[in-house]
């Protein structure tokens, strides 16, 4: 039995816009400008803001959908989505039970999480060479 089956009216479920989404949108714009001018990346933690479901829907609508979508399976599904604005990414993390554990907007060329780590590339190259050595 989940929370849905208990008839609770939660306060945050209010339909109204709080005005916070517009502030987040301005912050995204400012950070995108500094990414363009100085190459400076940034992240915004949506979980740290008092955003109502309506706020999030408004923000998602304003940011729109870009060309890239990446699904990752990292001890629960994660989803990286490019928005209509190049350099603005929406990240959504879930735990294995399916609950949302984190939601971020990352302003960068490509989110850090997607990039292959140099140390992993080195060990990948080593194991591939081992594999080839074993072939002959």
């Amino acid at each position, binding site marked *: 039995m989940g929370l849905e089956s*208990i008839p*609770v009216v*939660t*306060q945050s479920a209010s339909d109204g816009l709080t005005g916070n989404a517009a502030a987040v949108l301005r912050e995204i714009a400012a950070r995108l400008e500094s990414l363009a001018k100085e190459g400076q990346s940034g992240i915004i933690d949506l979980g740290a803001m008092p955003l109502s479901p309506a706020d999030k829907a408004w923000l998602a609508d304003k940011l729109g959908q870009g060309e890239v979508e990446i699904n990752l399976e990292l*001890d629960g599904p994660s989803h990286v989505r490019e928005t209509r604005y190049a350099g603005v990414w929406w990240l959504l*993390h879930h735990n294995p039970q399916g609950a949302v554990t984190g939601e*971020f907007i990352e302003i960068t060329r490509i989110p850090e*999480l997607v990039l292959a780590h140099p140390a992993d590339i080195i060990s990948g190259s080593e194991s591939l060479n081992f594999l080839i050595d074993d072939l002959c």
Partner: protein
Amino acid sequence: MREQEGRLVASLAQQGISRRTFMKYCATLASMMALPPSAGIAMAEAMASSRRPSVIWLPFQECTGCTESITRSHSPTLEGLIFDAISLDYQETLMAAAGHQAEEALEKAIEDNKGKFVLIIDGSVATGLDGAYSCIAGRSNLELLKKVAPHAAAIVAMGSCAAYGGIPKANPNPTAAVSVSDIIKDKPIVNIPGCPPIPVVMTGVLAHFLTFGSLPELDKLGRPKAFYGETIHDRCYRRPFYDQGKFAKTFDDDGARNGWCLFELGCKGPITYNACATVKWNGGTSWPVESGHGCLGCSEPDFWDGGGFYKALSMPANPLKLAAGAAVAGAAAGVAISFANRAKKGAAKAAHETTTLADLEK
């Protein structure tokens, strides 16, 4: 390769935890701790590249519930795996060594990591009869603590017993149990109370320590503010019912079935600082109030002596009028502790005496 072996990420990789999974975990951990999102990346980098932190864990007067909370759950949690991945140099319950070997391991761990290891204590310290109530290898917990603590970089008092004395300290406290901070005064100590504590709090504290070389911000009881900054009641999803004065009167009435507030059934949520309502238990599955039982107040000092788990926090001043006033008392007493409405709080206070855990103890 050898050098790599000591590293946390390599050790996690052996257990099938990829770097990205670890990065995701650090990002959500930083978010949970209300740190800026860049801290998540810093944590992942610092924890991944640092040598596995040396941890010495001393179990004192305890029930092993705290160890269970961290190491076991029905599926392996990332907290459990990170805990396995730290260099746990001494933990009597988990280590293979026993007897003299175990004692040698302790001496060696202290010698090798002097001034650098994190000392985790679970259980209270018995001080009666010179500490004779709880001994390991012929040494009292008190003696051991005084010997090991001076060499630690920081101390984590894990669980309500180590943090406040806990159940061993409950009246009449036959062993004269005290908390770690009652004995050790000159070391940074972080209290992680709870009976048991929430596993992610420990990983959060360790991650913070490894990344920034310091303990996270603490409240006046030495608890990390990020996890103990708000009461259970502040974040409880049944709060709207409390505010409307809708209370379950028994565990099987219509109110209980409708998910109403458990205040009158003894919920200690309003005076209990802990993260259960947001972090939840068992991988976010549920938590006590969601399962239909009030909060016991397990992360507050002396919760065991609080006067009964099923006794509501506020009672009418005159107990003789209790029966007659019971129906009204529910709504009014509920309002008495509402932090959200200070005006009503004042009015209710005038009509009723508010009883806290500390008052009940007297």
